[in-house]
């Protein structure tokens, strides 16, 4: 009897998966079946009460219809997240809508959807994944047609299309929606384009017209390296800064940006662009050359660099990681040679970054609140004989203005304490070497004694609490914990400009 037939009740019968508007409606019971039956499955996790999900629904259905009309082997599905809590937890869904792409029934590593929110964008993102992401090229006519079709065309030349490198190439092509991709293994095409080994070639309708990325014969093709290569070389040698180009400028993740400030309405300034462009090629990948037209809507950029429009033409180099800014030492003419020399000097650490500083006012220490600027900050704040409480403010900040009377009152209260200094510093006009100020008002306490200690004040900004803080030597009594222990403002994450994605 041990060999007897299995009881039918031991295994529940497989359900038919319902559909709405061409979209599978999945539950925890049916997801497994859907994964087995549909090798390419895009699943939307939604909440019925979520307005954004309701807005997305018609686009999602339309994408399904578009792909079905094209007979693409891809299926769109949805899961009610709050009702299917186990599934939401399994896939770490914390926001709605969230879209995940499952391939070949792989339940443990779905791909996060990163494409656009409209029907055509969803369809194209999926086409790149289930259909060919690169066009097979058999002859020169096809290759030239592809190259002529768009500004940026990438062709992978691989002698063996079964090589792992080809898979890497195709994986990159899936997400680079702004470029067209071709693929060939034809020896005649290798010869036609002057190639003797596996190479990825970027064809572009500007600058050099073409950039080659040879595949390392020993290490093979690295996705990150290829991605950076394509981003770097899809940039023009010189880019004019505006809202259209800025995304590309910073997507290149080139840390050093050389800005040429010119007034494009003046012929004398326009003549400088040739020299600027002439110096650019040798720094490709290291320094990005950007033109900022002071006659366009770029007042904020000038402000950020502490410049007036009349300063043009002038150069500034900025490192996005450190946010340090560099200026040429001499006021010489802007030529290809001087630009090259300046870039080399900065990259070799021979130029010191400039820090904004106001001049020290003659009466900086005459009033209860001492006035600090970049030039006298170090000697006052880190004076080992003084406890210095500094307010870092922005003149345009209403919170700082409204706090000023309390700060004045505090300074008057401790005016007769020889070892206590109450000070303020305009952090928008004075940059400090010791640390960067990210929020206003920022209150920092520099206790007397060695070691250059800094204590951040994060409690309520009123006279009574300030006094307790000072009387206690820079600590608030424990019996009265701060009302708002959270940080007053978010610290920017390290390398925040880089983003978390390694790829395009």
């Amino acid at each position, binding site marked *: 009897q041990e060999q007897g037939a299995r009881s039918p009740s031991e295994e529940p019968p497989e359900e038919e998966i319902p559909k709405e508007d061409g979209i599978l409606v999945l539950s925890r019971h049916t997801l497994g079946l859907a994964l087995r039956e549909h090798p390419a499955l895009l699943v939307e996790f939604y909440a019925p009460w979520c*307005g954004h999900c309701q807005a997305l629904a018609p686009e999602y259905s339309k994408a399904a219809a578009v792909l079905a009309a094209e007979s693409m082997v891809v299926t769109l599905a949805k899961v009610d997240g709050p009702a299917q809590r186990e599934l939401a937890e399994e896939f770490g869904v914390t926001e709605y*809508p969230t879209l995940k792409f499952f391939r070949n029934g792989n339940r443990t590593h779905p791909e996060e959807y990163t494409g656009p929110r409209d029907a055509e964008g969803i369809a194209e993102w999926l086409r790149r994944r289930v259909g060919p992401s690169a066009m097979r090229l058999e002859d020169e006519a096809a290759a030239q047609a592809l190259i002529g079709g768009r500004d940026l065309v990438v062709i992978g030349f691989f002698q063996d299309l079964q090589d792992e490198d080809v898979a890497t190439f195709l994986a990159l092509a899936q997400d680079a929606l702004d470029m067209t991709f071709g693929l060939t293994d034809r020896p005649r095409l290798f010869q036609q384009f002057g190639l003797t080994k596996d190479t990825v070639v970027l064809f572009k309708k500007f600058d050099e017209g073409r950039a080659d990325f040879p595949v390392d014969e020993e290490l093979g093709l690295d996705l990150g390296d290829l991605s950076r290569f394509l981003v770097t070389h899809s940039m023009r040698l010189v880019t004019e800064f505006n809202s259209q180009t800025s995304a590309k400028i910073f997507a290149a993740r080139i840390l050093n940006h050389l800005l040429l400030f010119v007034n494009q309405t003046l012929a004398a300034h326009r003549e400088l662009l040739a020299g600027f462009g002439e110096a650019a090629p040798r720094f490709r990948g290291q320094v990005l050359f950007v033109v900022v037209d002071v006659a366009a809507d770029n007042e904020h950029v000038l402000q*950020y660099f502490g410049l007036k429009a009349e300063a043009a033409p002038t150069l500034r180099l900025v490192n996005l990681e450190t946010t340090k800014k560099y200026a040429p030492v001499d006021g010489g003419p802007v030529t290809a040679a001087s630009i090259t020399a300046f870039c080399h000097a900065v990259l070799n650490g021979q130029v010191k970054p400039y820090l904004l500083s106001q001049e020290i006012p003659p009466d900086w220490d005459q009033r209860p609140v001492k006035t600090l600027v970049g030039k006298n900050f170090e000697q006052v704040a880190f004076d080992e004989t003084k406890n210095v409480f500094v307010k870092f403010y922005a003149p345009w900040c209403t919170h700082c203005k409204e706090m000023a009377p309390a700060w004045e009152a505090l300074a008057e209260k401790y005016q007769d304490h020889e070892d206590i200094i109450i000070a303020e510093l305009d952090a928008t006009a004075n940059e400090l070497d010791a640390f960067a100020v990210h*929020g206003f008002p920022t209150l920092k306490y520099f206790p007397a004694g060695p070691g250059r200690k800094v204590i951040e004040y994060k409690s309520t900004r009123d006279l009574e609490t300030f006094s307790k803080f000072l009387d206690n030597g820079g600590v608030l009594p424990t019996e009265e914990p701060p009302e708002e222990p959270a940080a007053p403002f978010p610290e920017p994450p390290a390398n925040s400009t880089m983003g978390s994605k390694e790829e395009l």
Partner: protein
Amino acid sequence: DPERAAARGDTFSALTSVARALAPERRLLGLLRRYLRGEEARLRDLTRFYDKVLSLHEDSTTPVANPLLAFTLIKRLQSDWRNVVHSLEASENIRALKDGYEKVEQDLPAFEDLEGAARALMRLQDVYMLNVKGLARGVFQRVTGSAITDLYSPKRLFSLTGDDCFQVGKVAYDMGDYYHAIPWLEEAVSLFRGSYGEWKTEDEASLEDALDHLAFAYFRAGNVSCALSLSREFLLYSPDNKRMARNVLKYERLLAESPNHVVAEAVIQRPNIPHLQTRDTYEGLCQTLGSQPTLYQIPSLYCSYETNSNAYLLLQPIRKEVIHLEPYIALYHDFVSDSEAQKIRELAEPWLQRSVVASGEKQLQVEYRISKSAWLKDTVDPKLVTLNHRIAALTGLDVRPPYAEYLQVVNYGIGGHYEPHFDHATSPSSPLYRMKSGNRVATFMIYLSSVEAGGATAFIYANLSVPVVRNAALFWWNLHRSGEGDSDTLHAGCPVLVGDKWVANKWIHEYGQEFRRPCSSSPED
């Protein structure tokens, strides 16, 4: 021209329209100057004739025996005097003036404008608790008990006349609003008393008119003794007015019958606007000179340079001031430059029309929104495209049509305001849904000018108000992440006390933002 006539009644609702009304008055000044010169020439000629004839009479040695003098005397009496008295020149001058006026008349404000402007003054009086005596003297003072607060002190005081005050009082009187009518008519009476006997061509009313209206207003307010004393004063100036004499008898009889009327004087209540349930809070916030004074004490409210990790802003971070957390309200200083703000105002001005509100399924002009607005497509100027990119970069939202509305540029009028309202739709039948891109998820409001006083943006349930900061932009979320409306975003545009307020609104809708601001796990977020 009915369309033009309709437009005439909205001069008061936008200061740019009020400013445009300066032009027809300049033309009227030209007409009057021409009339005055014509009249001066005519009067000089009449004076010449008078002097000539007088000199003949004063020369007693000249006998009528001279046949030449005798002839001219007879001629003057038969012909010259008739020509002088019946001269057509006077009527030609006045005819020219009237004809010129009729040509300008179509460009002059309508009576509805006078009403609107008067009601605007009363609105400012109410919201900012302004003292009417002070207003008549040209100062903007709040008087509460014995405390006097100067809300605004003009460099040059501009006083109102008795006729000016009478017109405001009469607008209130005609609406049956004696709460406002009495103080304005009191000022009119006081000013008319001081200048009694002086004749001003331009005045429409007189001391008697003011006394008449004020007496009746006091009567309707239940103050019979004041009504009586004012009516008696009226009879001092117009003893023959029988209607007023009968009123005096009636008031005397009323007082005789009910002596308690003297002490039972009811304090007249300010008219209550039924739809404005948050009036006291709203007006308190409008009176606050700037943000709530203790906001600066909260450590989680701060200023910073904001890039939103957006490439476009890395080289030009925008100055951000977090004003409130729930609902989230942020002020971005210097979001536009002076030239950008001026450009937007210039682009909008030719298209300004009276602002409307979405009420049920219709869009209506209402008393609780006084302004004119114009819609600007991105395509009208490259500056608007740049502006949209900057808004998109800062907010991370999609601001292309149809995901966001065109830029709405608003110019406020005299006492221009927008009483507490939501920016998002609160019912499915709202016309906001005609765009088919969902509800208004966020508001981006740019201040395109500064004002001298008033004009703040008040958030009623958040209990704060944001003063006008020129070139700054105010941002807040109208909807929770779930898509539900955030009722804590009830807000108002406070009446502009002094200044020319311009704002530009970019309303961003739900669609297009699904991956930019998704829903969280909880419907309450």
